[in-house]
């Protein structure tokens, strides 16, 4: 109750401040249009924004406090702000480098790039490096049970709480290094999601273009089929099929992960189908396609020379979005315990296994960080991809005008 009361009080104070701000602005600027025509809502927005920034600055200072109780409380906000600043700076430097180095084409690309997009590209690059070189970067193997090291070492590296500085993120219940598993996660989680998306694209894309070009009954049958599959929420459908697949996998001795890739690829290919078909149909009605048809060109030439080259931009953007979606679905399945199976290290599973450490937050914030690190690793990549896709979509819509 008191929380609600203090929020109301602050909002009231900001409301008054906003009115004062506009008034003072009008007075000080001699009624310049900027302040004269400013609506109250805009003034409120400015003051609210400033208040939020001031509060964040104070929280940051508090996180550096020598009083551990206070510092612990603001530790996570401090981390978030640090992370934000570091990433923003890195993205800026990265873009600056991109503008200086490379061919004329890439330099031009970087010149028009917003900071969010360059952040996205940078993160994707880092993940790519981690997933390719996971074996080199990680101190131990992903399924290596460390001899002579205790199992269940608490993360945070504080010996008083059962931690060990050599294993900053601790070890799991059978004594594997969690940090190594986190790094290997880039290989497994990202790699599997990427393979699934590729499969979904191959399946949905080819059928979608087929429906668009051939039309008629082929189109009708495929589209209605996809309609039905899309009428079942994808995560629910995936869970249902995974139940069945789990029985098959133990019978046939094929890892469940293989089934998961197939199931998600099929479910997701319905979305790709829709887009590919729509994009294809937009292109098929163009006069240059008509001209090619009237010339007597065959289907192969039409699809590969006339249609596909014009569909790459929207398909590429869609690939990014679908990757995010697949990635999140796999993470959710793993988190629920039916996704990527051990001994493969996977982020979704790690979050579930280490979730309890969240409750350490007040006295050992570093321990509480582990589940958030794995979950954050998932979030960071999808955010990055989304930023890039957002920019690509913005750019292609801007070019049309």
């Amino acid at each position, binding site marked *: 109750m008191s929380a609600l009361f203090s929020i109301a009080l602050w909002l009231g104070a900001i409301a008054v401040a906003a009115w004062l701000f506009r008034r003072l602005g009008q007075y000080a600027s001699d009624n310049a249009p900027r302040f004269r025509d400013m609506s109250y809502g805009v003034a409120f927005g400015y003051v609210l924004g400033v208040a939020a920034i001031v509060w964040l600055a104070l929280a940051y200072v508090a996180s550096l406090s020598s009083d551990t109780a206070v510092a612990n409380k603001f530790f996570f906000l401090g981390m978030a702000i640090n992370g934000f600043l570091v990433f923003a700076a890195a993205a800026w430097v990265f873009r600056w480098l991109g503008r200086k180095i490379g061919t004329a084409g890439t330099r031009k690309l970087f010149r028009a790039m917003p900071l969010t997009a360059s952040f996205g590209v940078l993160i994707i690059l880092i993940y790519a490096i981690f997933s390719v070189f996971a074996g080199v970067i990680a101190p131990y193997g992903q399924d290596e049970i460390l001899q002579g090291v205790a199992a269940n070492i608490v993360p945070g590296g504080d010996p008083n709480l059962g931690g060990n500085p050599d294993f900053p993120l601790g070890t799991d219940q059978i004594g594997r290094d969690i940090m190594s598993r986190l790094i290997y996660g880039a290989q497994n989680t990202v790699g599997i999601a990427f393979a699934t998306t590729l499969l979904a694209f191959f399946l949905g894309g080819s059928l979608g273009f087929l429906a668009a070009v051939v039309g008629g009954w082929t189109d009708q049958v495929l589209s209605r089929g996809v309609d039905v599959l899309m009428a079942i929420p994808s995560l629910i459908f995936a869970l249902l099929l995974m139940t069945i697949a789990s029985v098959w996998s133990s019978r046939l001795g094929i890892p469940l992960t293989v089934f998961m890739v197939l199931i998600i690829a099929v479910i997701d290919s319905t979305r790709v189908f829709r887009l590919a078909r729509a994009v294809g149909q937009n292109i098929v009605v163009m006069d240059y396609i008509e001209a090619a048809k009237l010339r007597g060109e065959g289907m192969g030439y039409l699809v590969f020379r006339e249609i596909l080259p014009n569909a790459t931009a929207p398909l590429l953007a869609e690939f990014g979005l679908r990757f995010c979606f697949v990635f999140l679905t796999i993470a*959710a399945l793993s988190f629920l315990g039916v996704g990527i199976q051990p001994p493969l290290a996977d982020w979704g599973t790690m979050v579930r296994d280490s979730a309890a450490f969240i409750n350490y937050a007040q006295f050992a914030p570093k321990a509480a960080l582990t589940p958030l690190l794995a*979950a954050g690793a998932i979030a960071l990549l999808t955010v990055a991809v989304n930023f890039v896709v957002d920019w690509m979509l913005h750019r292609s819509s801007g070019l049309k005008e």
Partner: protein
Amino acid sequence: MGNVLNIVLQRLALGLLTLLIVSIVIFIAVNMLPGDFAELILGQGATPEAVKTIREDLGLDQSLISRYFGWLGGMLTGDLGTSFAQLNFQTNLGGDGGVTVVEQIAPRFANTMFLAMVTAAIAVPIAVIVGILAALYRNTVFDRVANIFTLSSISSPEFFMAYVLILFLAVLNPILPSLSNIYQGMEFSDRLVKSLLPALTLTLVVTAHMMRMTRAAIINLLASPYIEMARLKGMSPMRVIVKHALPNALAPIINVIALNLAYLITGVVVVEVVFVYPGIGQLFVDSVKIRDIPVVQACCLIFAAAYILLNLTADILSILSNPRLRHPK
């Protein structure tokens, strides 16, 4: 009006047909299990008699088609069968009259609906208002900040959001409970407080989607020549929005809301698991893990039905709000 009624009836029929086909798809999917349910329930070492009893109990000796209609008929009359977990318990230990699937699902379904409604009550107004504001003040600092926030929250997995909220609102500042132990006969206010953290998590995810879609719809609308015309007629910004933009924005906004409520259905599964919220999503995941097929089947159909229903509602509402269809030539 006859015209609109026709279209609406058509859509309704199409929705029902889709639901029917979806039920067939689910049924077929379940029947793709290797062997049959009886072996699955009893495991490898079951006696042939026990297997036979269960087979007759479940009607597995009948043909596939008659089994489908039996199942479908049961669904329609509210008989969702008996859960395997209960059945197993009965046959092995000789207990009498366990819980049917309906008895298991009904209270949880109510809980999930409660959670969804609390979420919608918070998310819809925020999303629509912020979405409209972002569209009005597009390309300003406000719009860009909103864009970054919403993109980030869409991109994050639900469980990440859930744990961040638990961290800040339950562990560091103990304002809300991190476990939603809901039971029947609880007081409303208590129930609300216990459901608030899962509801907030869902709100974060759904709001972001809804806000972005609202923004896009409104921007699209504001670019139309009739909005420019209203401004050139000297109408106040408020009037332009309320009188000229909103009546046309209704259809897209309704669409956005319904689509996102449909999205909630998926999101609810993960969130219920994180907060141990006794809803249908959690039941579903538990049943998936122990391969309790009748429950999985029933939950799946319920989710699909809700999903289809919401999409159908969106479709029909947007038809009804289209002046071109309401006032034919």
